[in-house]
C-alpha cells in the first residue's frame, strides 16, 4: 500500500540551518494495518508523514502509494491527498468555516463531489467521531476543545481516505476526551478496514490500538515490527529515552527478579492472564 524507498529529506539545504530530517528510510506498510508511530520530538516523525501524501518533496528517494510513484511526472498529487488523509497536530486550528457542517464538507467539496454525496460523507464522518447533527449549524469556534478536535478529524475522514494518518490526535486533551477519540479511531478502523498511522507519545495509547509499531530515532527507522516484538525490546527503547507502557516495565522488573514471565506483556489483560498462570504453576508445585 505505502512503500518508501531510500527516502531522505533535508531542511533548508545550502544554508547554515541545513538539517537532515529523515535519512534513507525504507519501509513498507500493508493495507489494513494499524501502525503506531513513536519517536522523540525531532526524530523525523512529522516530516515522514508529510511525505506520505506529497506535501513535502523528498530530497532523494521515492514514495509509492499503491505502487504509484507520487512524484513521477503527471501524477495528480491532489488525488493522492484524498487517498491519504492527514490530520495534523492540533487540527482544530485549521477550522475556518461559518458552520461545523461546512467545515467538514470542505474536503469532499474540493474532491468535486455533488451536494448529495457531500451530505452523505459529512454525516458519516460526523457519526464516526461522535459529532451530533445538532451541532451542524453551530460555528466551529463556539465548540469546546474536544469537540473542535473531533470536527477537524471528521473533516479529513469525510474524504473517505484509504489511509488515515493522525499526528498526535490526543495531545492536550483531558483523559476522557483522549479515550473517546482513541476509541472512535479504533472503531473507524474496524468498520472501514483502512490503513491507519497514529503518531503518539503515549505508549499506552499505541499499545491499546496498534497492530504494528514504527519506532523512529535520530532521523532513521529504528524498527518496524509487531507490537509484541517491539515491546520485547523495551530496554533498547527505554535507552533511547522513550517510555514503554507501565505494565511492560513492571513485567521487565519481574523478569529481572527471577520470575518466569513473558517478555512482551503490554496490556492489562495479558498481564492478568500471565500472573494467573504463574500463580497457578506455583500452587501446582507447592
Amino acid at each position, binding site marked *: 500500500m505505502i512503500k518508501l524507498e531510500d527516502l531522505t529529506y533535508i531542511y*533548508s539545504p*545550502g544554508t*547554515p540551518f541545513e538539517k537532515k530530517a529523515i535519512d534513507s528510510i525504507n519501509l513498507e506498510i500493508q493495507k489494513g494495518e494499524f501502525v503506531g508511530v513513536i519517536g522523540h520530538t525531532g526524530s523525523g516523525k512529522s516530516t515522514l508523514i*508529510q511525505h506520505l*501524501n506529497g*506535501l513535502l518533496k523528498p530530497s532523494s528517494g521515492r514514495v509509492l502509494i499503491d505502487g504509484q510513484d507520487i512524484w513521477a511526472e503527471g501524477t495528480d498529487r*491532489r488525488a493522492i*491527498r*484524498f487517498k491519504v*488523509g*492527514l*490530520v*495534523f497536530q492540533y*487540527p482544530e*486550528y*485549521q*477550522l*475556518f468555516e461559518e458552520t461545523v457542517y461546512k467545515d467538514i464538507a*470542505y*474536503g469532499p467539496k*474540493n*474532491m468535486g463531489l455533488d451536494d448529495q454525496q457531500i451530505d452523505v460523507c459529512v454525516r458519516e464522518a460526523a457519526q464516526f467521531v461522535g459529532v451530533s447533527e445538532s451541532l451542524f449549524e453551530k460555528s466551529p*469556534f463556539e465548540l469546546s476543545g474536544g469537540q473542535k478536535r473531533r470536527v477537524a478529524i471528521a*473533516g*479529513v475522514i469525510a*474524504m473517505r481516505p484509504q489511509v488515515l494518518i493522525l499526528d498526535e490526535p490526543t495531545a492536550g486533551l483531558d483523559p476522557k476526551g483522549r479515550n473517546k477519540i482513541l476509541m472512535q479511531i479504533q472503531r473507524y478502523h474496524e468498520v472501514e478496514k483502512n490503513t491507519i498511522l497514529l503518531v503518539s507519545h503515549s505508549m499506552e495509547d499505541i499499545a491499546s490500538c496498534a497492530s504494528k509499531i514504527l519506532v523512529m530515532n535520530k532521523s532513521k527507522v529504528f524498527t518496524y515490527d509487531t507490537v509484541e516484538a517491539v515491546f520485547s525490546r523495551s530496554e533498547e527503547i527505554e535507552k533511547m529515552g522513550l517510555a514503554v507502557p507501565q505494565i511492560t516495565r513492571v513485567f521487565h522488573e519481574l523478569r529481572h527478579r527471577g520470575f518466569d514471565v513473558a517478555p512482551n506483556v503490554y496490556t492489562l489483560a495479558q498481564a492478568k492472564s500471565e500472573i494467573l498462570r504463574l500463580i497457578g504453576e506455583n500452587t501446582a508445585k507447592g
Partner: protein
Amino acid sequence: MIKDITIGQYFPGKSVLHRTDPRMKLILTVFYIVLLFLIQNILGYIIAIGFLVVAYIIAKIPFKMVLKSIKPIIPIIIFTAILNMFFIEGESEPLFEWWIFRIAPEGVKLAVTMAIRVVCLIVGASLLTYTTLPISLTDAIEDLLGPLKKLKFPVHELAMMMSIALRFIPTLVEETDKIMAAQKARGADLESGNLMQRAKALVPILIPLFISAFRRAEELALAMEARCYHGGENRTRLKQLHYTKLDVFAFLLFVLMLVGIILLNLYAPVLI
C-alpha cells in the same frame, strides 16, 4: 515557499561586522545611503560598490544570499529604469528616435545610476540585517531614539512593539506554512485558477491565521502582565550596549569615504 523570504534575515557569524555595535551599524547604514546619493562620479560608485564587496567578504555572507535579497526588487528596478530612459528629456542629440519614443543620453545615464543606487541601497541595508540580530537592532533604535523621551514620546513602547513584531514574524511564517499544509491535505488548491478563485482559496488560510494571531497576542499580553511588565520606567537591561574601538574605526572609515567622494565630486572630471 514563504520560508524563502530573506529580507530581515539574520545570518549568524562572528565577523568584525557582526561584532560592531548595532547603534553604530544603524547610523552607518543611514550614512551609507546618504553617501550613495551624494555620488556624482563613476569613481564614487566604484568606491561604494567596492566597500560592499569587501564588507560582504569580511562578514562571510555567501553571494547567493545577496542575490536572494535583490531578486524580489529586480522587476521594480527594471521598470523604473525603463521609465527613466524614455521620459527624461535631454538637451543633447537623442540616441534613438522612433514615433513618440525618444531616448536621450541623459535618460540612459539616469536609468543606469538609479539602478546602481537602488541595488547598492538594498544590498547595503541587507548587510545590516544579515549581521545584526533583530533584537539588537530594536535595542539600538530604542537607544538612539532615547532623547525623544524628553518630549514624552513613548520610545520604549515603540521599541517593544517592534521587537515583538519581529519576534513573531518567524512564528507566523511557520504557522502559515502549517495551515497551508493542513488545508492542502484537505485538497485546497492554491496554485491554479484565475485571480478570483485564488483569492477565494486564501480564505481557509487567512481565517485560521488571524484567529491564531489574536490568540497568541492575548496569551503574550497575559504572560507579560503575569511577570509584572509595566513599560519602560526604571527598567534596566541585561546586556548594555558599549561602543568600542571597532566602532570608532568603522566611523572613521565612513568619514574617509565621505571625504573621498566629496573630493572626487569637486576635483575629478565628471565622468558620467
